[in-house]
């Protein structure tokens, strides 16, 4: 039915067009072709001018109407340091091209109107004019030179990589069909090596777990970055081409499988600051959801977004991540909440090459508070130390962290950590160490305590500087 109707409509349309054609042809023949041509010249030359005026007006009015969406105008100033130069290049180019656009259009349609056919006149024969032609070769050449110079200057600044001694935050984004996988380097500041052959359900990036730099890397669900810090994004892809696109930061770079790329930028506005900017514009002070007038307004729900800008398959349009720019303090706070992917998903699973072994950073968590306290106390002078109560000069180490589950022998890694404790105790004679068990198994606790105590003693630490917690009960039982 639909097809039949469409065919009928189409046939009708054809008939109408043909009829218009016939009628006008007849009319022209009756009136004389000469007259018809004069009339056509009259109307079409005027239509041209009318078009030109309306077109130029429409471009200018629409540009003003959409001003608040343009780069560098309204609330849409770049939210990154280099973005400002992109925006200003845009503005400079818009200025020059705008002038040319308006002038050439006026000339084009005005000449067409002014020199429409007149049977009593002949066209002038000017085949060329060297002076004019030299002018309109050289002037564009100069303008282009200016744009090239400004443009390349900006480009070089934008694209330069981080210097060898520069501080920056590194972040890795990996595109896959159809999402982004994010990775931060963790405390060591180093992204661990990857091997695409190791990718599987539990190891989405193919991280090589044998390499210790991988062990503290974490995979957040969104990008969080501190404001005013240089960021270097390492960009790569797992399957096909993708493109890491942050529209608000003027960041865009292809993600290429097998060839990591990068983009360095410095966010300059926190998400909150950007929202405050938007709040100044009435178009953002409307409810986000038109059906819910009491709901949050647009500016309140604003978030920076990460998108894909290289066609990557049928889900290309859905590769979104949220980007949050926060203050330095909020960032540190957030960092603390992040847990290493290895520890939360791989540790002691069948894929863990270190299963059945203690890892130095795990052991170190047993002496972290001890180290902190030592550092704090060592910054005080001896007089002040003297006045401190004994309790304040005692700090715990966490016993269980030195042992494999259900074991009470000290391994090499644990001895290394205890050596660190010995060193602190030797440095500061006032300091005492408390052994803190965490297990429910009292017997195990006792044996572990003995192991540690014996080792510390063997390194020359006097018994009275080693505090046994609740040992008496344990002793009694045994």
């Amino acid at each position, binding site marked *: 039915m*639909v097809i039949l109707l469409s065919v009928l409509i189409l046939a009708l*349309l054809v008939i109408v*067009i*043909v009829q*218009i*054609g016939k009628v*006008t042809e007849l009319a*022209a023949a009756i009136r004389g*072709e000469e007259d*018809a*041509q004069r009339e*056509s010249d009259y109307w*079409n030359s005027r*239509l*041209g001018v009318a*078009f030109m005026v309306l077109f130029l007006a429409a471009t200018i009015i629409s540009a003003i109407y959409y001003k608040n969406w*343009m*780069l560098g105008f309204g609330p849409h100033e770049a939210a990154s340091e280099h973005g400002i130069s992109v925006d200003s*290049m*845009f503005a400079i180019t818009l200025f020059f*091209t705008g002038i*040319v656009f308006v002038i050439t259009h006026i*000339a*084009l*349609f005005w*000449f*067409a109107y002014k*020199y*429409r056919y007149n049977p009593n006149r*002949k066209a*002038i024969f*000017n*085949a*060329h004019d060297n002076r004019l*032609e030299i002018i*309109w*070769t050289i002037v*564009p*050449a100069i303008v*282009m030179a200016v744009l*090239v110079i400004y*443009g*390349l200057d900006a*480009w*070089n600044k934008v*694209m330069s990589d981080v210097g060898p001694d520069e501080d920056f935050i590194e972040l890795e984004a990996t595109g896959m069909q159809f999402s982004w996988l994010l990775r931060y380097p963790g405390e060591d500041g180093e992204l661990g090596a990857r091997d695409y*052959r190791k990718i599987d359900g539990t190891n989405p990036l193919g991280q090589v777990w044998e390499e210790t730099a991988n062990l503290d890397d974490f995979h957040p669900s969104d990008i969080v970055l501190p404001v005013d810090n240089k960021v270097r994004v390492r960009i790569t892809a797992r*399957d*096909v*081409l993708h493109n890491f696109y942050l529209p*608000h930061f*003027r960041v*865009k*770079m*292809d993600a*290429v499988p097998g060839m990591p790329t990068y983009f360095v930028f410095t966010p300059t506005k926190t998400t909150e600051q950007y929202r405050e900017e938007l709040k100044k514009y009435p178009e953002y002070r409307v409810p986000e959801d038109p059906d819910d007038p009491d709901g949050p307004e647009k500016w309140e729900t604003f978030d920076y977004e990460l*998108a894909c*800008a290289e066609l*990557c398959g049928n*889900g290309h349009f859905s590769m979104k991540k949220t980007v949050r720019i926060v203050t330095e303090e909020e960032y540190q706070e957030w960092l603390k909440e992040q847990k290493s992917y290895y520890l939360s998903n791989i540790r002691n699973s069948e894929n863990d090459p270190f299963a059945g072994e203690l890892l130095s950073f795990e052991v170190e968590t047993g002496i972290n508070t001890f180290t902190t306290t030592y550092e704090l106390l060592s910054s005080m002078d001896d007089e002040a130390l003297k006045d401190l109560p004994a309790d304040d000069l005692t700090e715990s180490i966490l016993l269980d962290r030195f042992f494999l589950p259900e074991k009470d022998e000290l391994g090499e890694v644990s001895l290394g950590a205890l050596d660190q404790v010995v060193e602190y105790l030797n440095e500061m004679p006032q300091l005492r160490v408390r052994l803190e068990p965490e297990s429910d198994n009292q017997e195990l606790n006792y044996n572990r305590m003995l192991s540690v105590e014996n080792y510390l003693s063997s390194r020359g630490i006097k018994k009275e500087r080693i505090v046994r917690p609740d040992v008496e009960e344990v002793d009694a039982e045994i």
Partner: protein
Amino acid sequence: MSTEIQQINTDELIEKYGHDDHFHELEHEEHDKYQSNFISHYIFSMDHKMISKQFLITGMFWAIIGGAMSLIFRMQLGFPEESLAWLQPILGKWIVVNEAGIGTLSPDFYYALVTMHGTILVFFVLTAGLSGTFSNLLIPLQVGARDMASPFMNMLSYWFFFLAGVVMFFSLFVSTGPFMGGWVAYPPLSALEQASSGSGVGMTLWLVSLALFVVSILLGGINYISTVINMRTKGLNMWRLPLTIWAFLITAVIGLLSFPVLFSGFLLLIFDRSFGTSFYLSEIFIGGEALDHVGGSPILYQHLFWFLGHPEVYIIVLPAFGIVSEVLSVHSRKPIFGYKAMVFSILAIAFLSFLVWAHHMFMAGINPFIAMIFVIFTLIIAVPSAVKVFNWIATLYGGNIRFNSASLFGIGFVSMFISGGLTGIFLGNSAIDIQMHDTYFVVAHFHIVMGVAAFFGMYAGIYHWFPKMYSRFMNETLGKIHFWVTLVGAYVIFWPMHYLGIAGVPRRYYSFDNFDTFNEFATMNQVITVAALIVFAAQLIFVVNFFYSIWKGREMKVQNPWGATTLEWTTPIKNIHGNWPGKIPTVHRWCYDYSKDEDSDTDYVPQVVPLAEGEKTDGAH
């Protein structure tokens, strides 16, 4: 429209000064073996004028298909909530109808439509349809030759194009869909079957089709070049060639130099797809397995593709340059302003077109230093382009302009070329391209400058040379309606896309719902879609006008209805094989002697008219 044009009897002049090559004597002995029956006349024709019509009508067929495809995906973008269930009879499973009866275009097919729209329009319509039509029609006619250097290769050129079309058409009906990875077909998406459902059989057919297409272009191009170089008639030196011929010649040269590179790029892609090589593939994990390919680079493909791809846009737009130069000059009764500058700017653009390809790849991960070189050359291209625009405008200045469909489309072309060319200056500057790359700004830019502008050039050419092709005129009123609706409509479609791009909206998005940043422009997308529907309908006016006029159009009663100087208007009203019934014309002057002599009755001097005593030509007065 034609009666006022004072006719000059060129037949006599040709008989008097022309060159007798005894062409028609042979004919009498063995009849006309080239056009003796239906098949040799209409199907496997070796006559350049017939082949030109074949290219044109095939191009129109593809333009309608490619255009209709864009309407379907524009419906999705403009009215994503509206049901497309009514398209199910045509598109079948690609329209997913839910329980409530609401039909949605599947993302797979959305991307297939986008990809096919690009491929068809760029290669089949604007390359073969434009250059194939007018190079074939005009080169022999305007250089004063009986036919192409090799009519047989010329015929093959069309049939390879036809075959390419057949293969591409088949790919539309494959159950896994045609190729859907964008017309640029970047690997690994195009190389791996697992990456998208169109990357299997669909992509294989796509590659086969385009390989055939490259063969067609090369066969045609060799012919165009040798005809222009070797078969110019007596007196027609290179500096007397119409700009159309210059444009077609340089277009063919560019094609000959760049299409083989594309072909080699495709060849490596075929190896990667079928024979396990790793030219473009490295370290890929897809479909749950890690592939063996290592060491390749997808960027290599992009270099090979764009080494064709950028010259390709000039392959598309240069013929339009030539046609518009000719049409504006004829209808404003003036010599084209700065003929030599026009030729040199075509040469400069052609040369530079080979040095700018990586501006499509600023954000692809190439070395930023390399990008700088491409920025410089890209912006230099603006200079010869600007010279051309100024010269077209200067051609109108002081003219005596006849407004008809051809000249209107010529003027419209200049407007489009200005608008689209200027936005290229934004994109060519790598710093701005960081933000603009792969957004709607790019879509707006290239659609205006090489899509709409090239179409305008083609329309100008069709309205202008239709009488030469079919000995009849197209209807002027319909032509003018066609022009004004298309001019205004095309701007309504593409101008707002600049704002989308400036706001950061990426191209090739099936839906904007996922992103707050991109989801602000529902109304604009609706306006664009409605305008696209209207503009498409206006093209149907053209199609009807075209076919109606072939049989029923107003007859051409005089040899030279526009009062043009070039040789094609010295041939008989009804085309014949061999173009001229007797001798071939000798040329005595360049082709832009319009309004030269203020005292003369006529305002043009055909190229076959000998110089009067003391008269200067070739631009001198």
